[in-house]
């Protein structure tokens, strides 16, 4: 059984959930994800392991409510059991032997990027963190991220915190100012368009850029093929070959159109889920 120990709303619509699941906590590494189901009717939803505590036997999930399944998950109460938590899945992040690394987090992407940033920091690598959100009230874990970074830049779309604008601007500046070149790689985790534009930004600098793809998944174990993406000329499976890939090789347009496959049904399910709540 995997139990919700603690649930906090970090910012409106984004929940931090501590899950008791000792076997998974024991093996969890930065970059791993789990697949969860709220109840027997649920979809199988992939979520990154944002943190873990081996001794307590817990993992931390950070969940953004975007549709029916995430809404349902956000309604689990402390003490409830998940119907299923499966993992740890995917390849963990490879911590590379670099001098300096840039971590770009967009929105809920702050959660998955944090353990990777921490792992680099613990290796003695100089971490530059760039954290973006739509507005100040949607920023979370800024302290945590800052605590493992040598430099921490915040950018919001409306300028309500940090600088006004997109994360790609400070990213370009940091890369341009990096002389002699010490930045060995860039991580970008967040909404798909944000990762795509980060990869485009780093391309002229030829800095290896790692993105963590959020393809639509079912099993998460390499059985169904639903999470396939085109990387370079190859078809790869996000769940077993990823979720991290070379951002310069990903076919972003194909990924984005595949993510839209269920647009209409997602709308129907979300409305029903909202209704179910208002009736209960």
């Amino acid at each position, binding site marked *: 059984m995997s139990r919700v120990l603690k649930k906090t709303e970090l910012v409106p619509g984004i929940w931090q959930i501590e899950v008791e699941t000792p076997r998974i906590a024991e093996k969890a590494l930065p970059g791993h994800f789990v697949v969860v189901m709220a109840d027997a009717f649920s979809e199988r939803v992939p979520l990154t392991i944002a943190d873990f505590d081996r001794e307590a036997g817990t993992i931390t999930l950070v969940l953004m409510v975007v549709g029916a399944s995430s809404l349902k998950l956000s309604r689990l109460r402390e003490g409830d059991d998940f119907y299923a938590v499966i993992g740890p899945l995917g390849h963990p992040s490879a911590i590379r032997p670099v001098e300096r690394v840039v971590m770009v987090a967009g929105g809920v992407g702050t959660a998955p990027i944090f353990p990777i940033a921490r792992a680099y920091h613990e290796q003695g690598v100089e971490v530059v963190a760039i954290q973006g959100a739509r507005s100040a009230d949607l920023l979370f874990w800024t302290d945590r991220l800052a605590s493992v970074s040598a430099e921490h830049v915040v950018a919001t779309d409306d300028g309500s915190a940090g600088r006004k604008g997109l994360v790609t601007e400070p990213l370009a500046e940091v890369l341009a100012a990096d002389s002699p070149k010490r930045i060995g790689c860039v991580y970008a985790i967040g909404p798909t368009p944000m990762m795509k534009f980060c990869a485009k930004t780093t391309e002229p600098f030829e800095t290896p850029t790692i993105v963590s793809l959020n393809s639509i998944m079912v099993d998460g*174990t390499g059985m169904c*093929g639903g999470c396939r993406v085109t990387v370079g000329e190859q078809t790869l499976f996000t769940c077993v070959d990823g979720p991290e890939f070379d951002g310069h090789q990903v076919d972003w347009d194909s990924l984005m*159109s595949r993510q839209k496959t269920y647009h209409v*049904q997602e709308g129907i399910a979300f409305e029903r889920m909202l209704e179910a709540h208002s009736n209960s």
Partner: protein
Amino acid sequence: MSGVKTKRSQKAGRVAMPEQAPEARIENFDEVPLGYTDEQARTEAMRCLQCKTPACCEGCPVQVDIPAFIRLIAEGKTLEAAAKIKESNCLPAACGRVCPQENQCEGLCVLGKKGEPVAIGNLERYAAQYASDYAARHGVDGPVKRPASTGKRVAVVGAGPAGLTVAGDLILQGHQVTVFEAFHKAGGVLSYGIPEFRLPKRIVQEEVEQLARLGVRFELNHVIGKATSVHELLGKEGFDAVFLGVGAGLPSVMGIPGENLGGVYLANEYLTRVNLMRAYDFPRYDTPIVRGRNVCVIGGGNVAMDAARTARRLGSERVSIIYRRSMEELPARAEEIHHAREEGIAFKTLCSPLEYLGDEHGMVKQARCQVMELGEPDDSGRRRPVPVDGKEVAIETDLVIIAIGGNANPIVTKQTEGLALNQHDYIAVNENGATSCPGIWAGGDIVTGSATVILAMGAGRTAAQDIHQYLCDGNPSTARCADTA
């Protein structure tokens, strides 16, 4: 029930199993064949000649004693018939429904030389159903003799037919058995691949519950190779032996343009969404599925037939099977092809996709296909399909389902040190199912590549015997220990 037809085949006299009529069944996911009545079963059983050297048995990979169980049905001793089958086949309810009988038992039945073979599969299904109905009515599973515990612990990885067979065989030998399954339901392909209308999920669940009552522990949602490694099972988890029955997995693509467009599925995903996740019941269940109007299914095996018939039930107006050879080479079970045709599925044979074209939203809209013809026979003895120069067809489609087979799933195979693989990355085993690692056995699709339920079960049985010997005397593949002799 409406739409039921019962027809008596005339000439050869084989009793046809009543079925839901095609127009009715494409509106639901209920099983198509409805099962024999007692009367029909006995009539059909009576057709068996009770051959002295029964050819049929040669065709059965697990050597079910076919004439013996059929005679018991003819004599009205159906519970005994079911027990007889269970001696060599622990999932008769499934095998009776999904074995490719025409290539196995029924394919060799002597009656088939002049007329129609005995309906062995139908009778097997009947006996299993009878026994399970009986158990349900009387609240018992029949006599269960559980031997004293040996104190040995076996880990079975994967709850498909291979793993379930090993679990069933070894629990009855007094060993403790834990089955680790990655999914949230046991059954393997029987749960997530083969649709409800062909194999009702309750049958699989009954079988699993029966094993649980015998004492088999099921640890669902536990991915071996991730949460726990295979070597850890033998090490700190304290198991004495491990059986790997993790199935094939990892589906193939053809590597042609457009395969990653929206609306292009690999059959595993399509079928898993519908069967395991119940997408046909969306939005009661949360998992969605694309419902196309013009569906193209690529491939000609059982998986392709299942996908096509599923799409039909999900309301698709036109469903076409696109297959590169001709009707004669279709590898699917004869009954599936027959049912698919009755359900209005079109067969575009000698046709192979070259490219999928998408609309401005990245959703598939057309399959451009190459017209083929049959050339010289290839290694498999079948005539090789070769492209007809310059002949192409364009098929309008909004849902493509690719069912062209698969590869070995790397999670367990690649992460288990010392585990020898064959040239196709499947696990290499000896004739007893033992792998290159002491204490580890394997069987089913992860050894053979995609095969059949009965072969997976047969492999499970073989491995279980060897595991049992090993647990008794610590020596794999050696002399039998006393209590199995």
